[in-house]
């Protein structure tokens, strides 16, 4: 056997002399070349975060314009068509281009650091999922900016989305854009799953993973299985619109409800997928500020998974009013009531952590802690709609709009902002301003509740959702005015966040490696971390490697300064799925243009499909095929082929 096939990795301490060597192996080359070819998870993570924030602002501005239209009865700022495109684009942007990618961004950035690894399992796939996300986002927004934005709400019911009732390009942009975006989510999910299961540091058995990892892992497993449903639905819709198939139109035997089933089989697991990682971030960060471990780690991890498993079986609660038989409805109603239980576990675990810990009130803490109550408000309104007869009254009113904003803003936006405050020092080396942070928090908190708490009442007073205007004399005027004012206060809060980020980038206090004295691995490396993350691969002996001396949880201690060196090539360690026993040395790929080329090829293809330029479709497909071929071409450096040349086996 060749010496390059099997090796005993050297074990040693972190040596300053080895850093330049690691740097030369892992650093992205400067300039545009590096920019377009990097596979560094940290850079990709930050790109995800920044891009998603841009979409949050775009979606937020759309919302603000809507709120101006709804500020009083019978306003004519917007035409019905403009309003319809705005609310649909707002929903699409927030759900697909902000809420999910922002969490992918944090997970991308943090995972290898949390797991004690040097990169994601498939770094090039990681780059690909970002480029596709960007391209699909641009694709969808080209539609919106040319007046062809989606105009049938984010869940896009047929037959209104079919060509008979919706002849423009709007729905073609949306359908194709969603199929396009689905590719990004799918490859991203695959990457997260393999990363979590195969690249954890030695000793980080599955019951020592941070909850964020559980959250994103669960979300990714779900995405892998449900995204095809929505991609398929949108593809079939596009076929119906452009090629005269009859999947959905009733006049030829098509089933409008088939759309709803396919959409919500995807949709409900998806709404959990866009909060579980955020709940995970809270579960990891709250204990830091409570100065104690999370209460009920195993229960919280279990409840994360349980939420998702139950989450596969509740989709019909979005279809209670479609005339399905009562027996079926009662099953889904029961399941939707039952699904509160795992959420309750997480809520009580957080409360107990706060109660039994010694809370330190910082801005990040405020965002995470307020999330608890916002989640409960959003959760109980979901509990109300879970009861079928009640939902027959509540559905499609502003009550549901209030529900979805409490859950989405409450357990996505708030923890995400908390995460910005919490991990900003790690990402940039500087702390964010706490004083401005307090202003930031209180404006967002007050603005949000001002806008959306009264909205429950608007719903109970019967205001239907998705109306471009309303008559006066319905009892909704004052409430809508308050909501509009609250929205602007909330927007100012977001603005303060942006200001704080920009200011702190330059002027923030220097953070040091572990400003919060937090327990997990990312805080054991410098801020910002070096391109290779860990100079030696640590060995983990507990859930809180940096708190071990104080918690005295385990006999053994994690070893952070002494470990596997792996400095002769771009390498990291592969470990077994459950116990994280090292079982192979992973050769990591160099930077590559292939992901970008695939994304460009796909963009050409999708643009061709949209405009029916078949030559463009084929050219794009060819670019994609060739890029993938070159990508997968077995490489010596990655040990994908024989024979390994003698020179490589020399060191090691």
């Amino acid at each position: 056997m060749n010496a390059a096939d099997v090796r005993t990795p050297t074990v040693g301490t972190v040596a300053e002399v080895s850093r330049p060597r690691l740097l030369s192996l892992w650093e992205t080359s400067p300039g545009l070349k590096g920019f377009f070819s990097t596979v560094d998870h940290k850079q990709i993570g930050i790109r995800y975060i920044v891009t998603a924030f841009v979409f949050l602002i775009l979606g937020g501005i759309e919302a603000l314009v809507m709120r101006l239209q709804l500020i009083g009865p019978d306003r004519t700022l917007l035409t019905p068509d403009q309003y319809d495109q705005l609310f649909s684009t707002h929903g699409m942007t927030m759900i697909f281009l902000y809420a999910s990618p922002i969490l992918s961004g944090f997970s991308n950035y943090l995972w290898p650091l949390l797991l004690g690894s040097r990169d994601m399992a498939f770094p090039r796939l990681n780059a690909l999922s970002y480029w596709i996300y960007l391209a699909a986002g641009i694709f969808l927004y080209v539609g919106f900016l040319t007046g062809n934005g989606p105009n049938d709400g984010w869940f896009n019911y047929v037959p209104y989305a079919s060509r008979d009732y919706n002849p423009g390009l709007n729905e073609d942009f949306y359908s194709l854009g969603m199929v396009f975006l689905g590719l990004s989510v799918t490859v991203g999910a695959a990457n997260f799953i393999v990363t979590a299961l195969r690249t954890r540091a030695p000793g980080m058995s599955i019951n020592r993973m941070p909850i964020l990892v559980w959250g994103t892992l669960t979300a990714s497993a779900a995405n892998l299985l449900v995204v095809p449903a929505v991609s398929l639905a949108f593809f079939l819709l596009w076929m119906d619109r452009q090629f005269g198939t009859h999947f959905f139109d009733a006049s030829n035997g098509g089933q409008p409800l088939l759309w709803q089933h396919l959409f919500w089989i995807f949709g409900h697991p998806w709404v959990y997928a866009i909060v579980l990682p955020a709940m995970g971030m809270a579960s990891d960060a709250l204990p830091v500020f409570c100065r104690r471990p999370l209460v009920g780690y195993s229960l919280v991890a279990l409840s994360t998974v349980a939420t998702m498993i139950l989450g596969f079986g509740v989709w019909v609660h979005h279809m209670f009013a479609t005339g399905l038989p009562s027996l079926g409805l009662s099953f889904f109603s029961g399941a939707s009531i039952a699904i509160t239980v795992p959420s309750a576990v997480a809520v009580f675990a957080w409360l107990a952590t706060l109660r039994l810990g010694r809370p330190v009130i910082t801005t990040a803490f405020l965002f995470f802690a307020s999330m608890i109550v916002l989640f409960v408000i959003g959760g109980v309104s979901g509990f109300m709609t879970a009861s079928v007869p009640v939902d027959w009254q509540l559905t499609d009113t502003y009550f549901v709009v209030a529900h979805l904003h409490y859950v989405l803003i409450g357990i996505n936006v708030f923890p995400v902002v908390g995460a910005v405050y919490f991990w900003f020092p790690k990402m940039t080396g500087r702390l964010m301003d706490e004083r401005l942070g307090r202003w930031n928090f209180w404006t967002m908190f007050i603005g949000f509740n001002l806008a959306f708490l009264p909205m429950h009442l608007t719903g109970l007073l019967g205001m239907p959702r998705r109306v471009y205007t309303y008559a006066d004399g319905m009892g909704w005027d004052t409430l809508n005015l308050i909501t509009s004012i609250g929205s602007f206060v909330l927007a100012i809060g977001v603005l303060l966040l942006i200001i704080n980020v920009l200011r702190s980038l330059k002027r923030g206090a220097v953070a040091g490696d572990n400003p919060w004295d937090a327990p997990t691995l990312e805080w054991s490396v410098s801020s910002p971390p070096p391109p290779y993350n860990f100079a030696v691969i640590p060995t983990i002996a507990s859930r809180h490697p940096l708190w071990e001396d104080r918690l005295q949880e385990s006999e053994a201690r994690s070893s952070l300064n002494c470990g596997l060196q792996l400095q002769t090539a771009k390498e990291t360690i592969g470990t077994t799925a459950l116990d994280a026993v090292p079982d192979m040395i992973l050769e990591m790929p160099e930077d590559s243009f292939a992901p970008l080329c695939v994304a460009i090829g796909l963009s050409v293809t999708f643009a061709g499909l949209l405009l029916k330029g078949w030559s463009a479709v084929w050219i794009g497909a060819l670019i994609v095929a060739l890029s993938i071929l070159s990508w997968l071409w077995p490489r010596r450096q990655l040990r994908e082929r024989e024979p390994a040349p003698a020179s490589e086996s020399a060191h090691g």
Partner: protein
Amino acid sequence: MVESAIATPRDLPVGPTGRKGLGSWGVATLIASEAALFSYLLFSYYYDGVVTPRGWLLEPSPSLKLALPNTILLLLSSAVAWWGERGILTRRRNQALWGFGIAFLMGALFALVQWFEWHAKPYHFGASNYASLYFITTGFHMAHVLVGLLVLAALFLWTVLDYFSPRRRLTVTAGVFYWHFVDVVWLFVFTTYYITPYLGFGR
């Protein structure tokens, strides 16, 4: 004094060896997702079949004349691809080349026959929701066959270039696994569209 736990693994394989390696995990996730895609297609079929009144099937007794032999052909091609993979494992390069080459040809023949099968159908895809589903499902499968053919062609090429050995062959295993998947999926599609009508579904 507490001791610190340092992992000191010995003799670790470097890079993918045999069928161990991240690549097989990656392909497994890809296949899970693809399997989900097909299950939604089949779900659509059964859903429509259940909620639509009688007379939904445009061909209450689908002709098996082409479909059945073609199914057998595809399954055999899977076996041949497996035999080709054995060739890599046993360092018999010619066996591998024959295996991948013949599997490729059989797959291509399957595609060709399927093409005729489509033309032999008495309806076209715009005839009804049944027709649309039939063509989209078999069409999706065909797309996967085409990708599979590309994969087999690449494996053939790489074997010609003598890239693989029993140790360094994850690409082969993953590619052949994909081909098995394409064939297994066809079994489900075939059963759904050609067999269940005889069992009474949707008649």
